[in-house]
């Protein structure tokens, strides 16, 4: 299994691509956030694979668990913002959010 670490890293890169593709093309606010979730899966896969590579699974698991905790907080705040946006505008279309032009 050690020699196939590149397979996992490859899949992590694929997941990263899928996530970024979702962020670039989707319009629904919640769908955009699903893209970020997919990127998080890619990151956890990359972390565990790097632990596999160095033979230090305990440390890699600690990092992964910590990252998942951070991800949960971020999901909670993001979904709270999305619900509030829905209460204001009644729609989840990101094209409605054009008041600020960047």
């Amino acid at each position: 299994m050690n020699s196939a670490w590149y397979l996992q890293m490859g899949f992590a890169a694929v997941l990263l691509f899928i996530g970024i593709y979702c962020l670039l093309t989707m319009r629904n606010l919640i769908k955009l956030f699903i893209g970020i979730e997919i990127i998080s899966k890619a990151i956890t896969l990359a972390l565990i694979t790097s632990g596999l590579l160095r033979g230090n699974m305990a440390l890699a698991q600690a990092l992964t668990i910590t990252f998942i905790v951070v991800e949960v907080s971020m999901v909670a705040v993001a979904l709270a913002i999305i619900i509030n946006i829905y209460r204001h505008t009644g729609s989840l279309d990101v094209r409605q959010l054009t008041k600020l032009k960047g």
Partner: protein
Amino acid sequence: MILQIFLLSGLTIFSVLAILLRDLLKAAISLALASIFLAMVFFRLNAPYAGVFEISVVAGLITVLFITTITLTKNPSDVRENKLPLIIFPLFFAVFIVIDLIIMKNLLNAVQPSLPGSTGPAGIFGQVFWNERTFDLVAQIGVIFAGVFSVLALFRTKDKHE
């Protein structure tokens, strides 16, 4: 090896489904299934704690949060997604996978897995988590508080800014 590839492909397919499905509820469930496949990959790689956490938190808690949000924001007129990206996605995807696996196999395989100077005691997980990375726990507490207080601030009922 075959099982590994199967699990990883399952993960990828369900992730792709999560963004291609029009119905948000089905997309959230697809995401949860992808998490379960990922957790099985973790179990096979001898990372049981990460696998358990992944299932209970990502496939559990986060999916519940998603479903709550989707239910609270039910809209009769759904967001019309642009059809074009969904159609050309398979093409991009196939090209990317081919390029990616070629690069990974050739270029990075030059880096031997048994790199010199493999440091770090591969200790017991409990010892590492509580003793070595104690500072991370402080930060985790901080980030949980930050999340909780932000959600409380966002859902407060009165005193809205004009």
